[in-house]
């Protein structure tokens, strides 16, 4: 269970909520309303006051990198530091198999990263993010560069990770996707943060 208590910084909040294993939360709101900042703050990439517990463990008791091994933020555009795709993955990860599931040609893994299309990079960045099985995934518009078919494949993969117990946050503008990963949602507007949850007894809401 992920427990967020009064998470707040100069852009958003305070936000309080509890999410159970295998649940997904849609993060909605206009561009610039704080969706990305909120998810980055959960991963401790941006400073924010408040407390966060994962399965009862206080984030403060873990080093930042141990926390990010468990709580993973995936930005909409990815950056790569080695030359080929394969070098970014642990050899133990079933890269080829997972690439097929996202309709990516397996030979891409030996390619120079600069030769990949935006959509290919986005799917590979998703695989890179799930390779070491984080417990919480914070996805910032994960299908923004994908066509309908690839979007569907990626959504299926998110669903299957979710059913294995991973907590999913997904920022999205697509109404189809919102429906799929709803009904729990956090809505960011300039005035307030609204938390709408299907089971209010489990999940606290908060208003600025």
């Amino acid at each position, binding site marked *: 269970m992920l427990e967020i208590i009064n998470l707040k910084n100069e852009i958003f909040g305070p936000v309080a909520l509890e999410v159970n294993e295998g649940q997904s939360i849609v993060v909605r709101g206009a561009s610039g309303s704080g969706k990305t900042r909120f998810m980055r703050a959960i*991963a*401790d*990439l*941006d*400073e924010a006051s408040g407390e966060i517990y994962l399965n009862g463990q206080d984030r403060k008791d873990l*080093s*930042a*990198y*141990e926390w*990010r*091994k468990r709580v*993973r*933020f*995936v*930005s909409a*555009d*990815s*950056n*790569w*530091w080695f030359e080929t795709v394969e070098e970014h993955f642990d050899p133990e990860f079933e890269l080829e198999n997972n690439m097929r599931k996202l309709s990516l040609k397996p030979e891409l893994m030996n390619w120079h990263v600069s030769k990949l299309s935006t959509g290919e990079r986005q799917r590979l*960045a998703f695989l*890179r*993010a799930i390779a*070491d099985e984080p417990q919480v995934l914070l996805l910032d518009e994960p299908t923004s560069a994908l066509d309908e078919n690839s979007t569907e494949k990626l959504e299926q993969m998110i669903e299957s990770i979710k059913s294995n117990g991973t907590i999913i946050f997904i920022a999205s503008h697509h109404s189809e996707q919102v429906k799929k990963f709803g009904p729990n949602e956090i809505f960011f507007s300039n005035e307030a943060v609204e938390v709408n949850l299907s089971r209010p007894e489990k999940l606290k809401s908060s208003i600025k």
Partner: protein
Amino acid sequence: MDYINLTFFDLALASLLILINGGISLALGLGLERTLFINTVRMTVQLVAIGFVLKFIFMQTSPIWTLGLALIMIALAGKEILNRQTHQLKGVRAYGLGATTLFCVGFICTLFAIFLLLEPEPWYSPRYFLPVLGMIIGNTMTGIGLGMETLTTSVKRDLKLIEDRLSLGQPRFIALGEHIRKAMKTGMMPIINAMAASGIISLPGMMTGQIISGVDPIEATKYQLMIMFLIAGGTALGTTGGVVGMVYLLTDERHRLRLERIKS
């Protein structure tokens, strides 16, 4: 030791060569004559002043005067490191890092030379202490400055890439690994290249000075080699200190990039 004393007339004659410089600037419209004039005067005043200061300090032979001047030299060299940074940090951090690194490296290397190699009597004899320290900090400040500059510039450019690596759970020294290595290399290249050039392309200034003042060329060579080893070691230490320190200044204890600490 015998050497030919320069008269003031000799110096005045040599200074006429600056006029050629000025003449070229005027003829080609380079607009350098004002800067040239100011810098010529500045250099003359600075050198004459340091000559008198050194003469005074050499007469004292007191640890306080020697160490006092050493600290002033380090403080000024620290400012020089700061001036060479295109992306300076806010507050005193950047100056503090450069000056502290220089202080540690300067003293480690100078005391090493004084106590283990030269062993002058007394150890604070300014004739040995100050020139050795001056050579070391004058050269290592280039490495420190270049290392810091390269790191800041490349981290600023690759901000998103580094954040991707941090969000995948890499600690800051891994996420910044390539940038650190590049900055270290850039800081150390000048001295490594200078080693290859010295003796063939250039005769180092100190060696030239010693030979003119009557020192046997082989003795002068030994001194020059010692200084080069000290500078090379100092540059490696200093560049490491500057770059590692800069990593700490550009990140925080939660392994986040803090580029807002750079002046915009």
